[in-house]
């Protein structure tokens, strides 16, 4: 069976605490072309801003260790995005919907 589209994807939250972290995050997100949930663009990323970003599975294998090495703290908001999508529509089976 075909792998569900968002299997293994995560949504993480990171709040840059310094200008250094801000620049690192901007560069990383621009390079990796992640899906920013908030803010809507890397242009808006600044110190103290809450950043939520969807990270595809293959990207998280490099991004998350990179953040750890750079000593940038992050939290995982949604650890299994595919499951979260399925839970979103609890009243109808998603396979019927789509």
């Amino acid at each position: 069976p075909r792998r569900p589209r968002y299997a293994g994807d995560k949504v993480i939250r990171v709040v840059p605490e310094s200008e250094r972290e801000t620049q690192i995050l901007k560069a990383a997100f621009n390079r990796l072309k992640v899906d920013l949930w908030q803010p809507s663009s890397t242009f808006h990323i600044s110190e103290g801003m809450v950043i939520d970003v969807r990270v595809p599975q293959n990207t998280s294998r490099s991004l998350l260790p990179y953040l750890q090495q750079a000593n940038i703290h992050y939290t995982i908001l949604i650890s299994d995005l595919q499951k979260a999508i399925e839970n979103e529509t609890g009243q109808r089976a998603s396979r019927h919907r789509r």
Partner: protein
Amino acid sequence: SLPAYNYEVYHSLEEIEEWMYYLNKTHSDLVHMFSVGKSYEGRPLYVLKLGKRSRPYKKAVWIDCGIHAREWIGPAFCQWFVKEALQTYQTDPAMKKMLTQLYFYVMPVFNVDGYHYSWTNDRFWRKTRSKNSRFWCHGVDANRNWKVKWCDEGASLHPCDDTYCGPFPESEPEVKAVAHFLRKHRKQIKAYLSFHAYAQMLLYPYSYKYATIPNFSCVESAAYNAVNALQSAYGVRYRYGPASSTLYVSSGSSMDWAYKNGIPYAFAFELRDTGHFGFLLPETLIRPTCTETMLAVKNITFHLLKKC
């Protein structure tokens, strides 16, 4: 029937359109469905005009949902609003007064192509689905495409970016169609409400600059009362303020355009939540989200009816 339609689930575009057709047929005393134009992919852009035909000229409120495709709670709220209007018109004196003294133009899905795409291909799609001749990327951010400081700060000129402003202002047929309608009815429409997600905020102009609007005290007090009313339902806190400082600077937004076009009360709601579910707000939370938001919308409407 009206009670049989489930307002606590997310509906596909086709279901929403069928629902609009149904209401237009069965509630002709309060509902009139029309189209303001066609989307890029040729879909009709439907709007419901709600209100009692009590007098020849009435002021109006414009409500749109789903400018950004993935923000599904927006269209869910627009449907909820219509449901509440029709179901409580006879029993709620406040709703009766609203629909007697005003018209409500409700556009349940602004970005119809994007919404359909988020249902069928990519749940997290944001933009429209227009094609770009030079790049393989599709779509324009429909909230960066309005002719108000177009493509300045907070918008991107790159077609592959999620905040792409488009090749020129009102390049998107959806934006052009709604802008045309609002321009044509600018003397009638006294409030513009646009529904997005997520952040739990009630925003007013300006988005494109840090500055105070001329009618700040009226708009600020409307916002203050609205978020208090909203919070009274379940204790959920919404921040409020000018979009530029409360959220971030962005140019070319519909709210700023509406305000510049002469609509004195222009607001953008960022509905639930603040990130726990994000765009994937579960269907079980549609009811409380919409119930509290109704209180805010009714509050703004009554503020509008009183002269500030």
